[in-house]
């Protein structure tokens, strides 16, 4: 199996605060990894470092075979990142938004409509402005925007946040589906029940490094 994320002793600094203090982790293709840990443990920073958004200041970091210390941009086209924020333009309509994301990823609109249905967003919301959506609906739209770009590595920061119980189950089935198709999913969640039954591997972080790893190789 090919290694998707290969971090060795990674240190990362945001401002003047060390957010990652020596992360050692390797993740294979097709894994479904849960990142667990208290607020401020470094889950978000690890996900952002994998996406090449958080610069790495020490150690070696490779994602999908690209050395992040040489080029942070290279692997991004294969990565889908769902952050705390949804990355939505408030003034666009749902349809325009998904159109924009699809065309940015070089895809047709037909793919986009499928992804909206997949996350359970009603057709009737298509012409609604993003600003009018509820928090949960926005989260779903953000997830749909990621499905559109068909990433090989999914980095999801609290994908369950703001979703209702049905939405959480849908989210889980999406993660399971893409992992079964060979994509890699790394997600952080505080919803222990929903996450642990889903994940093939649980990584616990504390103070910017790994403290427990159920699938350490």
């Amino acid at each position, binding site marked *: 199996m090919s290694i998707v994320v290969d971090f060795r002793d990674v*240190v990362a*600094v*945001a*401002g*003047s*605060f*060390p957010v990652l*203090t*020596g992360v050692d982790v390797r993740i294979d293709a097709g894994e479904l990894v849960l990142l*667990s*840990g*208290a*607020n401020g*443990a470094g889950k978000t920073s690890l996900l952002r470092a994998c996406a090449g958004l958080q*610069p790495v200041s020490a150690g070696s970091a490779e994602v999908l075979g690209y050395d992040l210390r040489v080029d942070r941009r290279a692997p991004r086209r294969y990565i889908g990142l769902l952050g705390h924020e949804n990355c939505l333009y408030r003034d666009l309509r749902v349809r325009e938004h998904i159109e924009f994301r699809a065309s940015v990823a070089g895809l047709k609109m037909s793919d986009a409509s499928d992804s909206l249905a997949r996350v359970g967003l009603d057709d009737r919301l298509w012409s609604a402005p993003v600003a009018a959506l509820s928090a949960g609906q926005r989260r779903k739209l953000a997830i749909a925007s990621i499905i559109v770009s068909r990433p090989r590595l999914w980095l999801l920061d609290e994908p369950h946040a703001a979703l209702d119980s049905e939405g959480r189950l849908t989210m889980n089935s999406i993660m399971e589906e893409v992992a079964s198709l060979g994509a890699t999913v790394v997600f952080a969640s*505080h919803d*222990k029940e929903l996450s642990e039954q889903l994940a093939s591997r649980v990584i*616990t*972080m*504390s*103070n*910017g*490094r790994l*403290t*427990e790893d159920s699938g350490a190789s």
Partner: protein
Amino acid sequence: MTSAKGRSVKMTATPFTRALGFLALAAVAVMALLGLVVSPPDVVQGEAVRMLYLHVPAIWIAYGSFAVTSVSSLLFLRRGKRREDKGRHYDRLGGAAAEVGVLFTGVTLITGMLWGKVTWGTYWQWDARLTTTVLLFVTYLGYLALRRLPADPVVRGRRAAIMALISFINVPIVHYSVDWWRTLHQKASLSVGRRPEITGEMYWTLLYSAVAVTFVAVWLVTHRYRVIRLEEIRDEEMLTALISQRVSQDLPPVSDGDFDE
């Protein structure tokens, strides 16, 4: 008291700069003597010509400093990427030189305005050079403001370097457009105070002053460079301390079942 031996990198004064500092002081003292006492008053401008020995070297130094900033910014962007320290010495040099450049641009403006008052009868003329200089001053003040913002040092350095280069291509544009604006406009009114004939003693005094002020500027840039280095060392040590503090807090993992928020 720790010995300075072997730790000279962390000191802002070394024997060399100490010597340079004394040299600069002595040179400035002689410069004051030459400029204020020895050299004769100008036939046209009288005593006011003594401003020349400050004003002209100051703008030379300012231009020189900004040139240093531009070159080191370029080197930082081009060479910095692959180096282990990301070429941060170029960044430090650029920052130190820009600060000294802004200081001397300020000196140029103040001495120029005072000089203008006694020779032209007015503090400010919309003269091409004055206008260009004031825009230069504001531009590099902006550069320093950008440098002061908190960010990852390499990120901040790169942003500042790009700004320095844009500012640099802007200098000739500003100069050219302002110059042209004034020549189109009022051709006569500029020749109010005639330039002094710079010959003999005045010429040598001016040249000497330029050398003396250069010593001062080099001393300032060197020390500022070292202080920036010290600031960086302090930040790095704080970071190392923070990392080891975080690492030592590692056990036992308190986080596992934390569900808040």
